């Protein structure tokens, strides 16, 4: 039991020193000292509660994905049938109940239609299921219903691209090391350390930035718009700024549902100033295809008005004085420089495929975080020192071993956390305290047991051997129960509980090693060299 061959000692010391050395970069960074860049630097991440910054939990509106898909399908079907030769006439079309259904005027062309729209569906998931289910009822009525697999895949795709858009927008803010991860089916967690203006981040992510250009339906009567009545094929869109109401003081406008242009075909968007009014505007540049479509729209509709719609609200509805051919345009709509810049960033990064809602927000000022970590470190230093003195005067030489194990334990925990890039949070510091407590307890158990065995009249070596052996059982049981608890907390807990559990798990592993294995090695070394006939304990 007390026999430690050389290879074992080399191994133990090597492991200890390597892991403890890995703590140095973290210690340097906490103390604010520079770490030589030539050396590897495994470093503990400081949680937002310590470093300051913003944590946002965003949730996507899943229903909207289905709605959007339905709209796209309608447009695709319409353009396919319109483009068919000879053209296929549609009777009426509806999107009720989450399904797209339409009737054909000429029921003899059912098979043509089936052939035309079949390529609009694709396989979804691993089961080989199509993403849309096409049915023909009553001879000439088509019903396209989305399959669950199709919806799931659509949401999945939407979330993937939402994460990308979020990343682009945050990068545009020029912050360092943001964390953006998908969580569950429809959530995104965003963590940005050391952010000075969390408000800007939120308004940037809260904006879907779906830009549309749609023709104004001039046949709609203002009083009807107020009452919510629109001509067929049109829809009512409210103004973003109610004070800029159209003629008649109506805070909304009727636009044609189809035949507009979407703002996703941009190559650039910049904040600029209107040369005439000197007001902040956003100037946009279309890509080839978008530019052509925009030129078509404007040349076919000179003297008419079109509405610039952002996220379902009308920014402005200017008249088309002449065709706009150059592929670039200007968006005005009571901006200030800040909101125009934000819109430009959002447009550049692309529209979010789905609205994101902030479900949870946590912002910690950088000063508070810095104060927390400073006082936390001081407290740990003072606490550990006082503890070391207490252990020293209680156990003498055995106390020295216990203290050395304690210091190495703290360093090793930091080192392991650094290697795995674990994030240290305030509850993590509590996990640290518990671990230190448990580690000290192991040595207390052992030393008390050795004392007891000496009182029973056993010889020195035998007492030490029995002390370690008998105490190990309780130490083992206590640590296993803590591991069980920590694993469950990690699996079922959230946020702070997880942070606590991680430190606890690492701490249990290192503390058993330092408090039991290392001290036993040191004690046995001393016993062999000094051969004491009595213990001061």
């Amino acid at each position, binding site marked *: 039991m007390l026999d430690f061959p050389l290879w074992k000692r080399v191994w133990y010391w090597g492991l200890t020193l390597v892991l403890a050395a890995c703590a140095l970069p973290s210690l340097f960074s906490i103390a604010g000292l520079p770490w030589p860049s030539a050396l590897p630097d495994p470093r503990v991440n400081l949680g937002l509660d310590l470093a300051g910054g913003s944590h946002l939990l965003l949730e996507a509106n899943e229903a909207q994905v289905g709605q959007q898909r339905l709209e796209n399908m309608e447009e695709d079907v319409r353009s396919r049938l319109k483009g068919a030769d000879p053209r296929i006439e549609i009777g009426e079309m509806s999107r009720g109940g989450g399904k797209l259904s339409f009737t054909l005027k000429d029921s003899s062309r059912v098979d043509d239609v089936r052939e035309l729209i079949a390529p609009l569906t694709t396989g979804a998931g691993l089961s080989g299921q199509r993403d849309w289910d096409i049915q023909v009822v009553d001879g000439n009525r088509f019903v396209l219903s989305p399959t669950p697999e199709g919806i799931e895949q659509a949401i999945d795709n939407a979330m993937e691209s939402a994460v990308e858009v979020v990343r682009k927008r945050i990068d545009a803010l020029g912050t360092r090391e943001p964390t953006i991860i998908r969580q569950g089916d429809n959530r995104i967690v965003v963590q940005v350390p050391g952010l000075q203006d969390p408000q800007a981040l939120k308004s940037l992510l809260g904006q879907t930035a779906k830009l549309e250009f749609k023709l104004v339906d001039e046949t709609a009567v203002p009083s009807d718009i107020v009452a919510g009545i629109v001509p067929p094929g049109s829809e009512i869109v409210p103004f973003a700024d109610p004070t800029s109401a159209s003629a008649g003081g109506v805070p909304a406008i009727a636009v044609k549902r189809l035949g507009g242009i979407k703002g996703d075909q941009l190559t650039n968007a910049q904040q600029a100033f209107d040369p005439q009014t000197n007001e902040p505007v956003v100037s946009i540049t279309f890509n080839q295809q978008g530019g052509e479509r925009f030129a078509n729209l404007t040349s076919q509709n000179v003297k008419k008005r079109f509405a610039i719609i952002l996220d379902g609200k009308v920014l402005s509805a200017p008249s088309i004085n002449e065709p706009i051919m150059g592929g670039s345009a200007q968006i005005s709509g009571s901006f200030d420089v800040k909101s125009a810049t934000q819109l430009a960033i959002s447009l550049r990064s692309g529209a979010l495929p789905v609205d994101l809602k902030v479900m949870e*927000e946590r912002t910690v000022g950088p*000063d*508070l975080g810095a104060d927390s970590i400073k006082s936390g470190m001081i407290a740990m230093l003072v606490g550990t020192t006082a503890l070391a003195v207490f252990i020293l005067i209680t156990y003498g030489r055995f106390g020295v071993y216990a203290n050395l194990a304690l210091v190495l334990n703290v360093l090793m925990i930091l080192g392991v956390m650094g290697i795995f890039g674990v994030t240290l949070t305030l509850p993590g510091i509590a996990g640290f305290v518990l671990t230190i407590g448990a580690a000290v307890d192991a040595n207390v158990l052992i030393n*008390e047991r050795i004392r007891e065995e000496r009182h029973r009249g056993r010889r020195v070596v035998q007492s030490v051997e029995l002390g370690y052996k008998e105490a190990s059982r309780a130490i083992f049981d206590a640590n296993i129960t803590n591991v069980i608890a920590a694993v469950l907390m990690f699996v*079922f807990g959230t946020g702070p*509980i997880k942070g606590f559990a991680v430190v606890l798990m690492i701490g249990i592993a290192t503390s058993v090693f330092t408090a039991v294995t290392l001290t036993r090695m040191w004690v046995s070394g001393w016993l062999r060299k000094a051969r004491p006939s009595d213990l001061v304990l």
Partner: protein
Amino acid sequence: MKLLKLVPDHTNIRFLKWRVPFYVISLLLMAASIGLVMTKGLNLGVDFVGGQMIRVTFERSAEAPVPELREQVAKLGFGEPIIQRYGQPNQISIRMKLPEGAEAESALSEKMASTITADIKRNHKDAKIDGVDSVSGKVSKELGWDAFRALGFAALAVAAYIWIRFEWQFGVGALFALVHDVTLTLGMFALTQMEFDLNIVAALLTLIGYSLNDTIVVYDRIRENMKKYRKMPMPELLDLSVNETLSRTIVTSLSILITLMALLILGPDVIFGFTAAIVLGIFVGTYSSVYMAAPVLIWLGVHSDSFVAKETEIDRQERLARERSSGIV
């Protein structure tokens, strides 16, 4: 070198003599805690009820102008704020319910936060916004459920492990001690109305871990002594075990208290409630290992021979055969 000895070598304190009165007191305290939690309720933070919390430090004031702030914030038309000190006297947290409709439109809660912070900054030049927490009702329900589940599963799994390693009575005893510790701590939070948030759940987990550690040390000694002294009556054996581990109990508790006191006095203000909960938990946990976890064993009928190997059918027939052949019958 003379070493510090807090506990004399051979103590023989009759701890278990007082087990009934202590049990009655503990049960009463538990009942009182549950009563407090039911009537006064826990001062649940935004983590568990949803809402918004803004933390402010008044850098050049000795004390935060709480009544004035309450009036100012209430005037903004978002409802009555709950304003509470945290840490230093010049640090406060303002808690608000989320405005109507904020569940659907998160911009509303952002507007509330920016209106309130702008108003405070305008009226108090030295106000520094330390942080804003906004938690929607949906997320807060999830956080609460997750915390509850993590606590519950951890406690049950740990009790099951002790059952496997010892005997079922020990598992029940440990679980009972855990429930006792958590209940009393919750009672303290209801009594003092300190804010109860997710960090406090981490504190509860810490004290569960600690208290369990203590219980296992005592149980381990009980198991050892049960094998050693098979004829000793249980109360006496428990007393012996507690006395033998007394020195360790005191030294360990003191060690942790030293570290915690440093954290309580010098540590971050944000986790004052958290540390206070653990300090209380250390006392409660140490006490419960001796007076809750141990006596339960007597009442659940643990006998000194519980750890003696049970006689199997083969053993019994062999014994009978032996007895027959030696003519005892």
